[in-house]
């Protein structure tokens, strides 16, 4: 169980880092990057919880691991939609920010 503590702390820092990036970067693409970072932190935390649930010969609790896989796919879908919207917006306006509306 103590083996997973470094990764638990890592996930907490990742969430904070990503949040910082989200707040301080005005460009939407950097915000999308920051979102992915926060998401990675949350998934990593779930992985730590899975590792703590190791039992009956499994290295970790399989349920959180499966949920992380689902979450990764859904997060990718969200990123794809956001990127497509952003590119289309830039094509239409030749600007790169959300400031002007």
């Amino acid at each position: 169980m103590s083996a997973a503590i470094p990764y638990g702390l890592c996930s907490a820092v990742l969430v904070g880092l990503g949040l910082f990036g989200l707040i301080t970067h005005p460009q939407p693409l950097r915000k999308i990057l920051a979102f992915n970072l926060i998401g990675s932190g949350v998934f990593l935390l779930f992985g730590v919880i899975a590792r703590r649930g190791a039992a009956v010969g499994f290295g970790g609790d399989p349920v959180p691991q499966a949920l992380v896989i689902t979450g990764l796919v859904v997060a990718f879908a969200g990123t794809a939609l956001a990127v497509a919207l952003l590119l289309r917006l830039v094509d239409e306006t030749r600007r790169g920010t959300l400031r002007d509306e």
Partner: protein
Amino acid sequence: MALAFDIVLVLLILGVATWTISARDTFAAVVGFIGFGLVLALAWVCLAAPDVALTEAAIGSGLTGGLLVGASARLRRTETTSGETPSISLRLSAGVVCTFISAGLAAIVLELPGKAPTLAPQVAANLAMIGLDNPVTAVLMAYRAVDTLLEVVVLLLVLGGIWSLAPDHLWGGSPGSRHLAGPDGVLPFVAQLLVPVGILVGIHIFWIGSVAPGGEFQGATILAAMWILATMAGLVDMPAVSRRWLRLLLVAGSAVFFAVGFAGFAMAGAFLAYPEAYAKLLILIIEIPLTLSIAATLALLVAGPPERAPQE
């Protein structure tokens, strides 16, 4: 010592993450993000989650990275015109807030109960009934199959949403520009070697998902990457998205998933239930078209909205 390795890995992860956030140039940040994903995949291996490691490397780092690289290249023109940098006070206050949040989260993580609750025994107890050896695949395809089903629907609908962003006259056309295979190109040569191998690897990873780390999402991602590679090298062209066969391919996986789910009413008394004798077979029947559908969906998600008019 394992703990020392963990700490070094964590420091590496945080270092790359910090670079991703603080890099001036967006392209550099995206490259940093791809590296971050790969190092994170290592962390997943250390957390005894090889299926997740595969998925993180393939989708989290590979596909997402490819998507973001393409986007940052196209946004390069506008980068220099948007010369806004956040003020020092904003960064300071944001830094303070985020440090608090991280600290709070870390405190909660350290306070997690000593005897961790886990569903592993329940998963193991029913594994034999399903006939699979990979517990993660069992969760994805049996215990929580409805989550997987909804997730596949999410993928398809996001694809439809991305298509909706095309202008009216381009609706139903082909995504991306036409890549022409030059006769002396390095890329077509590499692709011709790599794609068949990649397809075999993808199929293999999907196939062993029932007994070892792997499964349809990881295999499908590799197949999708091969299709994208072949397109970029000019070996094949992206089809028009209004083509009936493409639409059928995209929906086939979920259609079979729903069909087996409904059959579960008759055979085993509940939606998405499997009769004990046929569970593994039914899961396989779902997984084969599902892998192909997901591969097509993922590739098209990276390709984006149609950019060439359909030729009717």
